[in-house]
Structure formats: structure tokens, C-alpha cells
């Protein structure tokens, strides 16, 4: 076992879950905070398409711009303070609620405006055997 947290291996791209253990995307980027006279520290976990696209490369941001027009890069991106991190294991649990995250707006919008308008969306499905 190693000590400490390897940001690149253990945090970047990890599956994130909220307070209720529901999936809320992946750690798409990690941001350092630069402070006057003090060493920088890890400040935020960023979740969302724009952060992801930037990591993939310029061509991806360009492609995304084609589809979404000139976004200011803040739409649908969640910035969760590093201090909200509760546990690190197979997944990382953040002390947030899914409903509060801008990056989850798509999920909510689709649920409300598309999925739940189709009959049977709330219907019974059995739990796994």
C-alpha cells in the first residue's frame, strides 16, 4: 500500500457519487488554487463536458463548439470543492446532492422533458435477482 492519494491514478477520471451513492459523472479535471505567499493546493473537482473536452484536445473543444455554439465554457460544469470529498474507494463520494450540480442538469432535463413523458418510464422493474 502506498500512502497518500495519487491524484492522477486515484482521483482523475474516477467515478463520482453523491451523498446518496448515486452516480454523478466522473472527475473530468482537477484544479489547483494559486494563493499569494502560500503553496498552491488542490481546490476543486470539475465535472462536465467542457472540462472533459479540454483534456481530450483542441479538436474536441472545436467540435463541441460546432454543436453548441459559442458557449462560455461554464454551462453544465460543476466545480466541487475538494473538501467535499467524503470517501475514496472504487468510487469517490462527494458531500453534494445530485440535484444541485449543474453537470446533472442534462439528466434532470431529459428525465422531465423526454423520458417521463413516455408511458412506463416510472413503471415497475424488478430488482436484480
Amino acid at each position: 500500500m502506498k500512502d497518500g492519494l495519487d491524484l492522477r491514478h486515484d482521483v482523475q477520471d474516477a467515478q463520482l457519487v453523491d451523498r446518496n451513492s448515486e452516480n454523478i459523472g466522473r472527475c473530468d479535471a482537477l484544479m489547483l488554487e494559486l494563493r499569494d505567499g502560500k503553496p498552491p493546493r488542490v481546490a476543486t473537482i470539475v465535472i462536465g463536458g467542457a472540462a472533459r473536452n479540454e483534456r481530450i484536445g483542441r479538436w474536441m473543444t472545436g467540435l463541441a463548439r460546432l454543436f453548441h455554439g459559442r458557449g462560455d465554457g461554464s454551462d453544465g460544469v460543476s466545480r466541487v470543492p475538494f473538501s467535499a470529498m467524503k470517501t475514496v474507494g472504487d468510487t469517490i463520494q462527494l458531500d453534494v446532492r445530485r440535484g444541485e450540480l449543474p453537470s446533472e442538469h442534462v439528466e434532470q432535463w431529459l428525465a422531465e422533458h423526454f423520458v417521463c413523458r413516455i408511458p412506463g418510464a416510472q413503471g415497475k422493474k424488478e430488482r436484480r435477482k
Partner: protein
Amino acid sequence: MKKWAELALGVVTSMGGFLEVGSIATGVQGGASFGFQLGWALLLGTICLAILMEATGRLAAVSGRSYADLLREHMGIRFFIVPLVAVLIPSFLVLVSEIGGVAIALQMATGIAFRWWAIPIALVGWFLLWRGTFSIVEQGTAMLGLVSLVFLVAVFKMHPEWSAIGAGLVPSRPDNDKAKYWYLAVSILGASISPYLYLFYSAGALEDGWTIKYLNVNRITAGVGNLFGGGLALMVLVGSAIVFMPRNIQVDAYEQISLVLATPLGRGGFVLFLVTLFITCFGATVEITLANAYLLAQGFGWPWSENMKPAKDARFATTYTVVILLACIPIALGADPLKLTNISMVISAASLPVTVIPLLVLMNDERVMTTHSNGWLGNIALGSIAILAVALFVLAAPLYHLGGG
């Protein structure tokens, strides 16, 4: 007792779900042109698939995570985007072909042109996904898929020379038409080792709640189940060789394929061919649709499960809805299902390296696999498949150009 039931179910699921549009089409074309000689490609493809499924199943049972999930986490988004695209494109094409297979079966049964069936098929498939649970989708279609055993019956009735079939399982060079021979070998391999199969399998292991206690179920399902399934696919090739080769018939439409069963079994054989084509392609249609949704949901960390109400995993449910509806469009526009199948199999074969090579890496990562990481035998097996995958990547396009198109 319960364990035995689970093992039997696993074997039936792999076997009943094995045949689909690609294995039927490539097997029949191989048999019609080269007799039993391409049996080895089917055997090799089946063994590779069994090894890949065992590995992804073990990965899921040990880590509690799917292959796509680990692929994203351990390789990072910059790498993940490559297998993502490389899997989505061929599996979408294969999906279109499967819908085409169902549509052809309905055309042959009713006389109504196949293109009119595309949208109804997509809607029925979607409805099954919307309302059904994972076990209904997977095991339900696989149970019905056991009707494909009729190929075995047909071959027995034609009394083939079994020693000649056995000889075909050993690779040999063709006497003539080299380009076509190797092209068909590639497409048989592509039909047997589709990436969607093992991505679906590892997601399915989680849907069924597999844990480390299921390693034996995994081994038997992946090993025995696929070998039986591959045996059935071999019967398609053998039946085609017996029926078409002596008559020098080249297969260029699905309608002809029914002769493989109709020749030995008469009218009943024809009907059973339609039922087999319909069920196996329909089963593959819903599975590939789900596989695409799993890949996206797991890669991007959305909530996902075929056992959840669509309202609870809206992006996942929207994805499979959009995928199956998009996939019926080419068929509704009248695309030739057999041509589409052929090109899909080749693209599928070419896409293998980006999902096989990272698997080899993950299977040796002790942070993921703890004490169940690959031994030397497993590494030689997966390593050989990786080399084969790279060869297929390099050769697929030239061979399609020379031998297929």
C-alpha cells in the same frame, strides 16, 4: 443445486445468443465458397471470444466494475475516446445489420418488403428495453435463440463426412481465390469477436450481481457456452458447404440462406430458418443497443441499469432510445442488409486492438484484480489475441478491397 442451475443458464445464454446476422452470413458465405476449409477461422474466433469474455467477466466479478468503467478510469479520457469511437461505429453498423436480418426474416414470411419492417422492429425492441429487465432481455432472447439448434439437426440429416469437417479446423492455404479466402477468414473472425459482445458481457455480470463467488460460473459461461455456440456456427458453415458448394452457388442475398435448412428439412426447415433468423437477430438487436448505452453511461459516469426505471437513469434510457431509432433508418431507406453485414464484420475486426490491448494491461493490474490477475497462460492467450487483433487491423481494409467489395 442453485449453482448448477446458474451454470446451465450461463451456458444456454451464451449458446442461444451466439448466432446472429454476422455469424450466419459469414459462415454461409465461407461454406459456399470454400467448403469446410474455413472452419478454423470459426474455431479461432470462438476461442478468442471465450478468452476475452472470461477476462472481462472476471474483471467485473473481482472488481465490481465494468470493463468500460475501468477503461475510462485507468486509461484516462484522452485514451478512452479512441475505443469509445472505435466500438460505437462498428457496433452501430452491426446493429443496423441485425435489424436488417430481422426485417429480411419478416419479408420472407409475409412478402412485405423488408424496409417497411425496420421501424416496427425498432419500436418493439425499444419497448422491450423500456419495460423489460436485464434477465428478460438477455436470457429471454437466448432461450428462444435455442431454436438455432435446428442447424445441427439439418447437418446431421445430410450425413456429412465428419473427418473432413475436422480437417477444416486446421488452417490451410486455399487452392485458388486467395484474396476472397482471407477476406472471408477476416469477416468470420470479425463476426465471432465483436467488441460489443465482451463489453455487454462485463456489464451483464454487474446487472446480474456477480461477485468473486461467480468466477466458476464465469469460466463455464464464457468457455463452454461459447464453444457450444461456436459449434452451432460451425454447423451453419458446414450446412452451407454441403448445400451450396456442389451446386456452385455464390450467396449474395439472405433469401438464399434458407436453403441450408430447407434442403434437408423441407418446408419445415424453411420456416425454422425464418424463426431462427428472426429471433437471433432480434436478440442481438436489443443487446447491441444496450451495449452502446452501457459503454457511454459507464464511460461518462451516468447512472445506468437495465433493471432501473427509465426515469431513474434518463441519459442511459435516452441513449438506447436514440440508438435503436437511428439504427432502423438505413434499413427503412432500403440499404442492402447483406452488404452492410459484410462491411460491418470487417470494420468490427479492424477495431479490435483498442479494446483488446488495454484489457491485457488491466488484467495484470493488481490494484484492480487483487489476487485474480492474469497468470502466464492467460497473458500468452490475451497477448496472442492482441497480436491477432493488430494483424486484423492492418489487413481488414486491403482484404475487403481485394476479396469482398
